[in-house]
């Protein structure tokens, strides 16, 4: 009996000890600016370690098992004797969390993930001299804020693209040109609209507000002050009444849009491509309001156990040939200029996705992590950070 009485007491005592110990470590806090830990860069690429672990978006690292025509992993494995272990990430947030674990060597980070990874000291700077193909990257993708800080390069660009409006042609007879039907409470597709399941989707609402409610004064969807965020949340709550499904698993999105469970909604070109490959009647369009988008880069973990294979993969994936394959499989603009040359197919693809058309990408708002400092240049206003977006997102979904 003594023991049973003493146990909760002991547990409580140890708990308060732990809490006290933890409280002591809380002194270090980050200021407004972005502090970047100083991490060493690789100086040479040595012998292959035999494997490389990659977290990537669906369609970036393909060995032919999802689509027999998409395979650029097998040749890499044969040539470098590095076995590729792939994990598909569903959201940037998941990728950031997985990279913190230290089990992965590489990540295909989008702009909203890359800044968090750099600031968190989770990724190391890249020595671009070790990546011969780096020189052919299109100018628009070099030196972006989200993968280049303090004169150091952290990412090797893969490509960029927009979050498109996809629709099932069986249900949507006339090709849409606007996002309006996905936001309106009286949408003709009520109950069959799909939306992306991540707080970053708030930016899509902001893009819509920029077109429909200019008096809110939103000039960058990632720089929202409290009132602007509230307006975006209001719009998302309206959308929630007409949404059938939220998705963040690309294959779930494919099943939803090709079966007709969803009629239209935000999606990726790769989802459209996969649906079409299965015979689904799915098309996509970049609506007139513009869209959010992403620009992805390979980043190497600061704790990478297989840096040589990781560098080999970054160079391999940046070569004109492989970069063209990745870009065409995912449906995005390739990062390598030369991926737009060499064949009719490559040229057409780059034209479709405006690979070198910087004016086009001015309409596309690349995913960026929202921070307190308004990145649209306002100095008197305080913007909402990603944590507030995360809380707002829970509120939206109810």
């Amino acid at each position, binding site marked *: 009996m003594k023991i049973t009485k003493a146990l909760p007491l002991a547990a409580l005592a140890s708990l308060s000890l732990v809490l006290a110990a933890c409280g002591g470590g809380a002194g270090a806090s980050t200021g407004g600016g972005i502090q970047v830990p100083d991490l060493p860069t690789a100086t040479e690429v040595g012998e292959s370690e035999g494997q490389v672990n990659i977290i990537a978006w669906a369609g970036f690292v393909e060995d032919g098992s999802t689509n027999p025509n998409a395979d650029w992993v097998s040749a890499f494995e044969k040539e470098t004797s590095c076995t590729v272990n792939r994990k598909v990430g569903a959201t940037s947030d998941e990728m950031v969390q997985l990279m913190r674990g230290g089990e992965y060597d590489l990540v295909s980070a989008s702009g909203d993930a890359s800044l968090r990874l750099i600031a968190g000291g989770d990724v190391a700077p890249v020595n671009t001299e070790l990546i011969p193909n780096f020189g052919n990257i299109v100018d628009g993708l070099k030196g972006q804020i989200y993968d280049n800080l303090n004169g150091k390069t952290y990412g090797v660009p893969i490509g960029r693209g927009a979050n498109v409006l996809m629709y099932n042609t069986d249900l949507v007879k006339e090709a849409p040109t606007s996002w309006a039907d996905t936001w309106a409470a009286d949408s003709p597709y009520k109950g069959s609209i799909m939306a992306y399941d991540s707080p970053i989707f708030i930016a899509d609402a902001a893009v819509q507000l920029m077109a429909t409610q200019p008096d809110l004064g939103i000039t960058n969807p990632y720089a929202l002050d409290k009132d602007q965020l509230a307006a975006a949340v209001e719009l998302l709550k309206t959308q929630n009444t007409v949404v059938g499904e939220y998705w963040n698993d690309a294959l779930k999105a494919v099943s939803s849009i090709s079966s007709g469970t969803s009629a239209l909604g935000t999606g990726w070109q790769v989802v459209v491509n996969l649906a079409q490959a299965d015979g689904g009647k799915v098309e996509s369009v970049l609506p007139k309001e513009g869209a959010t988008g992403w620009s992805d880069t390979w980043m190497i973990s600061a704790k990478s156990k297989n840096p040589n294979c990781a560098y080999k993969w970054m160079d391999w994936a940046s070569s004109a040939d492989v970069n063209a394959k990745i870009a065409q499989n995912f449906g995005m603009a390739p990062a390598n200029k030369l991926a737009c040359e060499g064949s009719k197919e490559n040229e057409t693809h780059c034209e479709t996705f405006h690979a070198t058309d910087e004016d086009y990408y001015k309409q596309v708002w690349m995913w960026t992590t929202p921070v307190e400092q308004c990145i649209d240049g306002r100095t008197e206003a305080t913007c909402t950070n990603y944590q507030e977006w*995360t809380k707002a997102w829970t509120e939206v979904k109810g």
Partner: protein
Amino acid sequence: MTPKHHLAPGFPPFAFFAPTSKEDRRDSSAPAMTALKTPPDTAVTRTIPTTQGPRNSSLADKISRYLYIRPKVRVTGLLLLPLLWLGVLYLGSLALLFITAFWTTDSFTSKVIPAFTLENFTEILTQPAYQATALRTIGIALAVTVLSAALALPLGLYMAKVASPKMRALLAIGITLPLWAGYLVKVFSWRIIFSTGGPLDWLLAPFGASGPGYGTTALVITLTYQWFPYMAVPVYSAFRQIPVNLFDASSDLGAKSWATVRTIAIPLLKPAFIAGSIFTFSLSLGDYIAAQFVGGKTQVIGTVIASNINLNPPLAAAFGIVPIIVVVIYLFLARKTGALKAL
């Protein structure tokens, strides 16, 4: 048992008298203690060990002698591993969860910062979305439990009292067979069943109806399918234990079938229902994958935790305490009914 057996080398003579009567009763099942019940005539040969060469021949002997005279050490040693499992791994991770709930995250990198704050709990208690989600999840878990119980009663009755042995075996396999399939496979099958123009819509089309589509209804049905065996098996085995003559007596006294079920079977089955409901209720409370695939936009506790686990782990931890509290309350209520005594 031969006398030699009782007089294993190193057997301490005083051990015959050492245990008190209380300990004697407690350890009566242990093989070593059977020596205590040996007839007095073996006492004659008691001195043999001292004449049979070295008594402390091996380490094992030393240990067994040491443990024999110290029952408390013996019990502690036996229970140490399971206690470590329960205490360190099981309760320890729960304690860590609880501690994390008081921490916070860096607003930019969303890295966890250990610091004491009640912010996460305030957030959960003041933000209506969390309360709505918690209540919705409890509602879904209760619906799944009630539905499972309602289905298990007639099925158990039929299997235990009506069906032929062959049919009974077939049904038993039928109930447990889905447990052999992968969880995700089953959830995805239900996703296909409920899809627009899918099998359910096709089946209902001749009647001018259509399936419920993805949403709470689909979620309740899918979860009921997933957890039904955990309700059906205890109810069935409890039914088998009810003697047939109780039913005969009931009908002799003029009770109709339903009256018999209501007044005889259900009270006797109550412990089984409660035992089953603990599984169906707590498993439904924690599920989130089914909600993601067939729930449409339905948020449950699990999906909220899953969406926060990457961005705000402390908030996820704080919200993770909600189902723990709910299950503890549920177990407490179940205990009050006395049903847990039978477990």
